[in-house]
């Protein structure tokens, strides 16, 4: 039963990935704007250089040929050559992936932990002042534009209090003689971006946790447990929270796609050298291969995250049948 379910989900994910590859390819083909923009803007470029560039990127070929070449290369893990950097897309993406993973990872962990705690407290103390405060905090952070929050945090923490640097990932060009110093530098640069992204996410996690927990608490078996004489604390810990965690897993997976949007803003504000920023640059420079590469990577990771969530869900929740 379970195996069948997993198989079905994997198959669905593969279909979605296939859709994404096709959509991805043609979306960037119909995009206006010439990929030779970078060269065109320079009065010192020669006609021959422009011609050669076209040739190099296979832009002279008809579109369907370009598509099959793209598919063929994709299977071999070759995402093409970046128009701007003139180096393989895989290399460019690889050099920018870690900063985003670290920043997003930390922010996710932080917001999940804090969000769940807040949600549990809120649900448990339903209707009290604590609940109202937690709820208002969640709704407010959920309503703030990410970039605006980032700018205000810079104004407060970097300019006002001078606690953290304004931007970047490490003090640029500094030579570190020991790892600890570097970690320290890294941590101080990470602080504000992670805080910004976490604040934006905490609200949603807290709200969802609160609601599902309240949902679970009204289920029949909860009443039964209560009738059996278990104390509230025990019920919440042993039964309610584990059950309420299930929807959280789905939410966290679905949020992956949304977080990428948040990182574009955060990386712009904090000059963070990650994928979001790279994607924005690629968009402005009409770097199709790079855009396609990033887009593909992001969508596939979101699809995989959802798949993992689905599978985990099916194993954790006894109610999910084949």
């Amino acid at each position: 039963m379970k195996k069948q379910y997993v198989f079905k989900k994997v198959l669905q994910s593969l279909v979605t990935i296939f859709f994404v590859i096709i959509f991805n390819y043609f979306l960037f083909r119909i995009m206006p704007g010439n990929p030779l923009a970078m060269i065109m803007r320079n009065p010192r470029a020669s006609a021959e250089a422009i011609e050669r560039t076209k040739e190099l990127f296979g832009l002279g070929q008809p579109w369907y040929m370009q598509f099959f070449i793209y598919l063929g290369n994709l299977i071999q893990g070759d995402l093409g050559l970046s128009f701007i950097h003139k180096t393989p897309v895989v290399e460019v993406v690889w050099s920018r992936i870690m900063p985003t993973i670290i920043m997003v990872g930390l922010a996710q962990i932080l917001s999940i932990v804090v969000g769940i705690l807040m949600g549990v407290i809120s649900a448990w103390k339903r209707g009290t002042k604590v609940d109202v405060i937690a709820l208002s905090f969640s709704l407010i952070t959920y309503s703030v534009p990410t970039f605006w929050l980032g700018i205000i945090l810079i104004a407060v923490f970097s300019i006002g209090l001078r606690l953290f640097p304004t931007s970047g990932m490490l003090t640029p060009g500094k030579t570190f003689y020991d790892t600890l110093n570097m970690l320290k530098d890294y941590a101080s640069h990470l602080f504000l971006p992670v805080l910004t992204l976490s604040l934006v996410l905490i609200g949603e996690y807290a709200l969802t946790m609160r609601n599902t927990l309240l949902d679970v608490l009204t289920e029949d078996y909860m009443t039964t447990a209560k009738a059996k004489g278990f104390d509230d604390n025990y019920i919440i810990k042993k039964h309610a929270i584990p059950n309420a965690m299930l929807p959280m897993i789905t939410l966290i997976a679905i949020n992956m796609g949304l977080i990428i949007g948040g990182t574009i803003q955060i990386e712009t504000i904090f000059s963070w050298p990650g994928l979001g920023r790279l994607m924005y640059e690629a968009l402005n420079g009409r770097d199709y291969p790079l855009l396609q590469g990033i887009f593909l990577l992001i969508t596939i990771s979101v699809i995989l995250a959802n798949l993992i969530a689905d599978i985990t869900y099916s194993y954790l929740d006894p109610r999910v049948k084949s």
Partner: protein
Amino acid sequence: MKTKRKIVIMLTIIMVLSMFQTNVFGSQTEEPDAMRIGVTVEIDSLSPLISYSQIGYEVFMLLYDPLISVDDNLEPVANLAKDWTLNDDQTEWTFNLRDDVKWHDGEPFTSADVVFTYDMLLGNDLGMYSGYLGGIIEVTAPDDYTVIVKTESPKANMLQNSCPILPEHIWKDVNPDDYMTWPNEQPIGTGAFKFSELKQGEYLKLVANDDYFLGRPGIDDLIFVLYANTDTMAQSIKLGEIDAATNFSPSQLDSLQTEAGIEAISAVVLGFTELSFNAWDDPSSKANPLLNDIVVRHAIELSIDKQSILDIVYSGQGSVGTSLIPPEGFYHYEPSADELRDFNIDKANQILEEAGYIDLDGDGIRQDSDGTPLEFIFTLRADNTDEVKAGQMIAGSAAEAGIKLNIETVDDGLLIDKIYSGDFDMFIWGWGTDLDPTTILNVMTTSQIGNMSDSNYSNERYDQLFIEQQTIMDPVERQKVVWEMQQILYEEAPYIILFYDNSLQAVNTAKWTGWKRIPEEGGYFFNLTNYNYLNVQPVSDTAPAEPGSNTALYVIAAVVAVAVVFMFNRRKKAK
């Protein structure tokens, strides 16, 4: 169980915190004098055959040397070539090279490198430097320290050739077919700075070349720091995170000028912002044909209050534009009082009236004799807010002359598409120019239509003069020709040169001394010379204050602790 868990957590926290603590008492190695310069555009490639960016030009000037460079008066000055002679018919140049120059990897620099570089560029026509070599037919090296360059006809801009000389011993191993993609990841040059590292999306680091033949620079580490926006860059320079930066907005300049220890300037740079018309009279042009009437173009220019726009949008940082070559250049042509089209709505209305453009239906828009209204699409670049604001003001005042400009905002890529396909009426953007006028004059030649030309302008006389000016060795004679070219352009108005807008730069004068503006009203950097990079000295060895990075660690340690607690909780439950 519970106490055990608590002990583990406590120990973890103490361990993590103590790690940070020991570090405070750890040995401090002497910090090099690092100059950090904030930039908003990343270098596109480390290969001079691939890069087309302004930052690339700046960096190659530091890593490499040309035969002849530019001094602090923007005059040609000996560099790799110590002196040079020109034969009587002005087609053969002999350059005598320095014999004390070494590449960064210790190999000696010789004439073979020059011949190799020039041959490579002439053979491939790649990159932003090959254009400087136009007209050269042969490069030879009679001995290790002499290079002879033969040209087809006299070559006026031979000494304004900033082409960097590349090391033959490195580049000879590169297959010529790969020139377009070979990344040159570890550039080896002869320049004042050596390449250290490039962190994509973060910074580019250069270090002083101890053996530089013109003397070691005072800056130990030179770091170009990439910013994704100018707003945090302005904050950073105030906080001392960076020592210099450019591309500020006028209000940022104002606030930086009040900062102690920071010198913020409005620097004259070679370049302009223009309104370009689609002046293509070819049948495949998709422009509104009414734009082919010079009277309409003149009327639009007359309706623009350039000074007001400059004052409001650019806070007056720059000057009102007239002709193609900026006034700082020797070749700038200033239109006479008769020719000049200053802001004058009445005159705009008058010349349109005389040319038969009359508003018959009373909707405020003039029409030609066939009843076609003077209505055009005005394309602006969304990411350049200054241009958008200027465009909005222009559309407002053109309406007063009975011309309707419909604004559309697009991104760079889309605009370039439109220009390529000739599918536009008018738009705003700008060019940066060289000391020598050839490259910018070339943009308006007929041969550049479909390539470099952004107005699809064509004029036979202009094309003739363009070829002619390249071969006139006497600057005064050449100036006359270049003046006539600009006069033609001004009269026919394929461009309305709106402003010569300044570059707003700031440097830290508390930490660094010896800054010089080049030219007198110009900038500290991005001014075509490497003078400041070579001559600026640190004030004294002061350790830069590091903002309390410990705080972050404490917070992160706390988060880790919470996470640990949480995980223990989970695990217990799972049992």
